[in-house]
């Protein structure tokens, strides 16, 4: 059965094979683990397709259909757990970064990259001022804590732009707020769930946009 995992992850099994594999999954922890890892790859494949905008009314239609369904709310048990691990920032391993952008093709509407100060990585900015933070060699946030991203301006203005705890080798985090000209992005370590104002100076920050 194990050799069906790749085919199952890609939805490329025949229906009877897929059913057999699913019942095997219930009994086989290694297959469940492997499948979870392959989920990252199939998600990556999903992101590689050409952009296409859905019609505006699709959102409304989905929400209307959801509203029309009577559905009991699920049980209120906790559904996620943060990994409890040690310290925050490691020494930056030199090599790490990141041919990622270097390896990509030049594209018509350019992505800009701003270097980070205090960590290895970059802030990637699009023409619409949306941004992705890429940072390498960051330890996962300790238990009960989370990294919080801020769009900052001057010494006093800091607006929350997302949290992340799981860093992997290289964390890639989409900011929930646009980065306007003259602002920069800073990251602090805060209590789990995030806070509305940073409790200390940034651990690291980007150059100004």
């Amino acid at each position, binding site marked *: 059965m194990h*050799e069906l995992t790749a*085919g199952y*992850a*890609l939805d*490329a*099994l*025949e229906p009877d094979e897929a059913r057999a594999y699913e019942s095997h999954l219930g009994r086989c922890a290694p297959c469940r683990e492997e*499948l*979870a890892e*392959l*989920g*990252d790859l*199939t*998600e*990556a*494949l*999903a*992101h*590689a*397709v*050409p*952009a*296409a905008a*859905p*019609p505006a009314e*699709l959102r*409304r239609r*989905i*929400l209307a259909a*959801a509203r029309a*369904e009577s*559905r009991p709310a*699920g049980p*209120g048990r906790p559904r*996620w*757990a943060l990994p409890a691990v040690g310290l925050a920032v490691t020494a930056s391993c030199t*090599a*790490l*970064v*990141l*041919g990622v952008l*270097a*390896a*990509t*093709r030049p594209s018509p*509407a350019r*992505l*800009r*990259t701003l270097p980070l100060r205090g960590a290895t990585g970059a802030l990637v*900015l*699009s*023409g*619409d001022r*949306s941004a992705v933070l890429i940072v*390498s060699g960051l330890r996962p946030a300790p238990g009960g804590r989370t990294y919080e991203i801020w769009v900052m301006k001057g010494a006093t203005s800091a607006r929350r732009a997302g*949290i992340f705890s799981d860093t992997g*080798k*290289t964390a*890639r985090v989409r900011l*929930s707020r646009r980065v306007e000209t003259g602002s920069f992005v800073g990251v602090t370590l805060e209590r789990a769930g995030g806070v509305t104002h940073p409790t200390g100076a940034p651990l690291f920050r980007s150059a100004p946009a």
Partner: protein
Amino acid sequence: MRVLRRSGHPVTTPRDLAHLSDEAVVALVARAEEGALGELYDRYGSTAFALSLRVLRDRGLAEDAVQDAFLTVWRRASTFLPERGRASSWLLTLVHRRAVDLVRREERHPADPLENDEGLGEERSAEDSAWLRFERERVQAALARLPDQQREVLELAYYGGFTQSQLAERLGRPVGTIKSQMFAALSRLREGLEPQPSEEPWRTR
């Protein structure tokens, strides 16, 4: 919150969802918070639609697959287990599975999913978010580094909706070969998505 303004049905308490993780948003969907479903759509609706359209090559069917997947999330959010993977992977898996089901049912396999791309090109690259652009370019670069036969099997399976047996027949290779090429393609893709230390350091463009 946009959903409340648009729908005029204030069934949920407005709250700021933007700073929540995807998993936390799904947990709110599990409590039947419609605004959370809207937030999930705002984060992944375009990716879901683009994926669905890539597989189905028909806008109406692509919309159907996306709607079905989001409604599945709505119904089954309480069964989502974060230890089995990210919420975004779960959602996009549901979208892909639904699209593949439809493409097989409609027998809409194109003659060759690697060509025949008219009308499916980039649609609004200028306003595309940094995140989508960055991910797309990163993964496309990793795909481009795969050996041709592995890339072919991976792309025909995932974007074309072909099963392993169909691929064996179509490509004239034994099923066992297809399986091992698929496995090898995923392994190499994983390596290819890791940062490439040998390449140029960061340059500000």
